[in-house]
């Protein structure tokens, strides 16, 4: 069990600990405060105010990083959050004479609510539409502040009071820097915590392929809104920092151009990389101060840098390093090279992975999945015509049929990708029709795709872990406030994922990205990802495609052992010998109709089935023989 050992060593590796330090509030705040103290020691208020500018941009960058870097949502109106945060804080302190520190949580809440209001309708749109809608949102918000007399309309609010705590005024640059450093430290800690949490992992899966993420059980819409709202909340903190130190705010501080600048900082730093954003924000603010000539060319230089970066180094100045696996590379190298010698040998009989006990929905051999009179029409075309089918617990049911027979359409209907025109689908006593894909996954249906859909930027093990999301009994509060629980959860998920990869014989590829793997290995990762959700029904869409005979033999054994655990398997496959060898029963679809069902051998000898396959090749002969 070298792979399991490596999973342990991964978690114990030193670099991981180092990274975890920045998820500690104390650690991150000390880091920023020490830098602040050094600058204060130098005694130049000029450099202190520059540091405050850096912190403002860095905070905004970190907030956008949650939206864009973690979740992959192109928000081009991020300045709107910055504006709402700054204005909320300013209204509370100026118009209502609240204490500044009380205004910060309110600013966060108001911005979060704005995020929900705008995010809910727009985040279901295609990602490119989101970009344009968020630009619109940014402009609408700015126009609103520009015309709202209560906040001074275009003139803005002036003067804003200095922050005050128990009569102690933060009225000099050094004190303001200290305050800003504490806020930035908190933001760094929370952003890091989000990044390593189960939510952060799910966000990255969404960023890579939101459709696949939904189907493996990640509630994508809710998590996108979550990213948008949390990014917005951090923008509110940046807004509050800005409001406290710039004495005046007016709508011209929050233009589209500001959104674009923050976007550039995040891309330059590296999508998802906290340290990258900090570095990029520093360069963005400080470089023009050192080299005055740069000031004039800043936008040009940074636009060109972004173009070059995205083209040649998409990971940014400092690529994100949040998954534990990347940090554990050295320890795995040893394991990997050890295993290369044995790669040619078929893996031994797979040992079942211990999955957390879940009460099976139905007894072994009982009907698990019931498809009842399902019809699916696209326009005038009937893709499924009154199909009924049952998959029993613990059986392998082969679903065959010529191309275009409706096999994948049926899978899409089961997994909630598309609601059938009529008919119902049940899993045990749970009705699946009309349910969202991620709920169906949570109910215990997992699938693979005909055209493999792995998360391309995630390593194999992270792909598998994405499948475990729906089993995580953790929430936002855990992600933000209970890093220890998150770490424990992560240790468990890594261990289980490694065990699954090991079972499928690809443990030594755990840290590679899909692009680095062979086609067959990618299929195996997809199967491991499907198994990771601890399904009761596993749907495999042509899993053997691209596999050589020995790999197919392994696959048969793996599938057999899965079925032996009481999991129902719906197997779509073109490889007839494989279907015959593995299936308990076989069903045949032709032109959307179920034309045969029974023992595989018998079904394949059925005249109608033969006709269907021949017929799909040459329609003309069909009529004569019928």
């Amino acid at each position, binding site marked *: 069990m070298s792979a399991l050992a490596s999973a342990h060593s991964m978690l114990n590796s030193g670099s991981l600990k180092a990274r975890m330090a920045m998820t500690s509030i104390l650690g991150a705040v000390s880091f920023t405060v020490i830098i602040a103290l050094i*600058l204060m020691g*130098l*005694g*130049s*208020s*000029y*450099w*202190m*105010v*520059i540091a*405050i*500018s850096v912190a*403002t941009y860095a905070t905004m960058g970190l907030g956008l990083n949650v939206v864009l870097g973690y979740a992959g949502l192109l928000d081009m109106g991020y300045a709107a959050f910055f504006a709402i945060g700054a204005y909320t804080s300013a209204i509370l302190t100026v118009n209502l004479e609240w204490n500044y520190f009380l205004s910060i949580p309110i600013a966060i809440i108001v911005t979060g609510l704005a995020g929900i209001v705008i995010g809910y309708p727009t985040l279901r749109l295609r990602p490119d539409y989101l970009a344009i809608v968020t630009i619109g949102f940014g402009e609408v918000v700015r*126009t609103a502040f*520009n*015309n709202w007399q209560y906040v001074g*309309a*275009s*003139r*803005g609010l*002036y*003067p804003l009071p200095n922050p005050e705590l128990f009569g102690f005024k933060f*009225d*000099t*640059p050094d004190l303001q820097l200290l305050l800003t450093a504490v806020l930035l430290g908190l933001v760094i800690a929370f952003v890091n915590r989000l990044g390593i949490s189960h939510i952060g992992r799910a966000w990255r899966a969404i960023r890579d392929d939101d459709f696949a993420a939904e189907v493996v059980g990640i509630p994508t819409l809710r998590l996108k809104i979550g990213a948008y709202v949390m990014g917005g909340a951090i923008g509110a903190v940046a807004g509050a920092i*800005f409001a406290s*130190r*710039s*004495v*005046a*705010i*007016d*709508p*011209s*501080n929050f233009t589209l151009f500001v959104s674009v600048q923050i976007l550039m900082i995040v891309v330059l730093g590296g999508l998802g990389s906290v340290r990258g954003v900090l*570095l990029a924000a*520093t*360069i963005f603010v*400080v*470089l023009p*101060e*050192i080299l*005055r000539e740069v*000031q*004039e060319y*800043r936008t040009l230089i940074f636009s060109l840098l972004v173009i070059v970066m995205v083209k040649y*180094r998409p990971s940014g*100045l*400092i690529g994100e390093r949040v998954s534990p696996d990347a940090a554990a*590379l050295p320890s*795995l*190298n040893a394991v*990997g090279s050890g295993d290369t010698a044995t790669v040619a040998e078929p893996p031994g009989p797979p040992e079942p992975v211990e999955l957390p006990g879940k009460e099976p929905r139905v007894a072994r051999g009982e009907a698990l999945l019931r498809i009842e009179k399902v019809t699916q029409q696209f326009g005038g075309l009937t893709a499924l015509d009154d199909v009924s089918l049952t998959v029993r617990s613990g059986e392998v049911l082969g679903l065959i049929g010529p191309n275009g027979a409706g096999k994948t359409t049926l899978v899409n209907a089961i997994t909630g990708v598309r609601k059938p025109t009529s008919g119902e689908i049940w899993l045990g006593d749970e009705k699946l029709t009309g349910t969202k894909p991620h709920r169906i996954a949570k109910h215990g249906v997992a699938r693979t795709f005909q055209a493999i859909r792995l998360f391309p930027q995630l390593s194999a093990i992270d792909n598998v872990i994405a499948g475990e999301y729906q089993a995580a009994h953790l929430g936002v509060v855990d992600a933000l406030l209970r890093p220890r629980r998150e770490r424990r959860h992560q240790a468990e998920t890594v261990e289980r994922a490694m065990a699954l990869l090991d079972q499928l014989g690809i443990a030594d590829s755990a*840290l*590679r990205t899909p692009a*680095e*793997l*062979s086609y067959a290995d990618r299929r195996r990762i997809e199967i491991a990802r499907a198994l990771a959700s601890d399904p009761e029904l596993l749907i495999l869409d042509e899993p053997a495609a691209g596999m050589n005979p020995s790999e197919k033999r392994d696959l048969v054994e793996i599938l057999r052992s899965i079925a032996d655990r009481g999991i129902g398997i719906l197997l779509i496959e073109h490889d007839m010998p494989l279907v015959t060898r593995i299936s308990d029963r076989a069903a045949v679809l032709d032109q959307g109709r179920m034309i045969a069902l029974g023992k595989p051998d018998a079904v394949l000898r059925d005249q109608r089935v033969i006709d269907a396959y021949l017929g799909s090749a040459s329609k003309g002969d069909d009529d004569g023989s019928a």
Partner: protein
Amino acid sequence: MSSPSTSREGKRPWKAIIASIVAMFAVSVLVAACGGDDSDNSTGPIKVGILAPMSGSVASDGEDIQNASEMAIESVNADGGIDGRKIELNVADDACEAQQGVQAAEKLVQDNVVAVVGGYCSDATLPAMEVFSRSDNLPFVVSVSSNPDVTESGFENIVRLIGRDDFEAPADVAYLNDVVGSEKVAIVHDNTEFAVSVADNMKKEIEENGGPEIVYFDAVQPGSNDYRAMLDRVEREGADTLFYTGFYPEFGPIARQWSSLGLDYNLVGGTSTINSTVSELAPDAVTDDRFSIVTYPTALLLQGKEAKQYRADYKEKFGNDPGPYGVFQYDAMKTLIAAIEEDPADLSHEALNERLKATELEGVTGSIKFDEKGDRTAFPYLAVRSDGTDFVPEYSVGEDGTWGESGK
């Protein structure tokens, strides 16, 4: 298939590059941070800070401000300076933006200047004022920022050369009353801070002190090209005059479409609409009797002897015509120099602030004298129309605040 070890090696040059960038950066920041100037300012050259937008969208005006400042000290330095001390300029770029404004202000404070002259965008000026006031009320002679808050916030260290936005509105309304004789006016702005505040103040002025009925009050979107829908609406609302408080890039097309639609009402532009491009785009409009622009006495419009000298000197020294607002910076510098000359031995902030407020002199932009807030007591607005080649003053505001024919 690349193994993990090779892919890591591939990243190494990047790491080195990034590490060296970070290191260079840290070193230069440290060097710069330690290089503060702690010298006493009672000997050596007199350092004067210039706060201006040297980058960003209004950088050309920043350059004009810098040029005007240089011209103002030229003769003083040529005569051996004040009390043997030459004046040295220290220019800080506020980029017309709040964060940069604070940084630039702190830089000037760190460099130990005796006073700061400048301020163009109030976005940058207001936060900078806060910094100066915190630094023992470092004297700040504001040249071009017209936001009323600059002198309304109760700071001790401010005097201002240009007219306030809320000075403009009464002058605009008086112009409508005295010269245009308007009874129904349409006021249009462009949603920007300056234009909205002039428009709002006009409305307030009319409500408080009487004037034409406002039949239409709205904005256009800056950057659009077609304003006919708005122009038409103004006609429909029955206005006899359209007053536009926005900026010249929009005023050009507005004037042009106003004239091509053959509309019946008068067209008047506010202080930010004067620019040669307006004549270029709307040659028919700018010579029309019903067209006029209310403006500050900008460098090209001033008629006095000093103003002609200023224009000639500027052109000779820098090779081009002065920008519109540099002349206020020039007068601001002259005001500061006068205050310094009064007692060159005592340049403490307190003494200098006191003397600045009391300064009286004849500047290029007219008589300079400050009220207790630091604003000029009388402000000489002009109303201009084109004679086919240049804008020429037709009317001006007298000492009593009423408009009359401009004495040419």
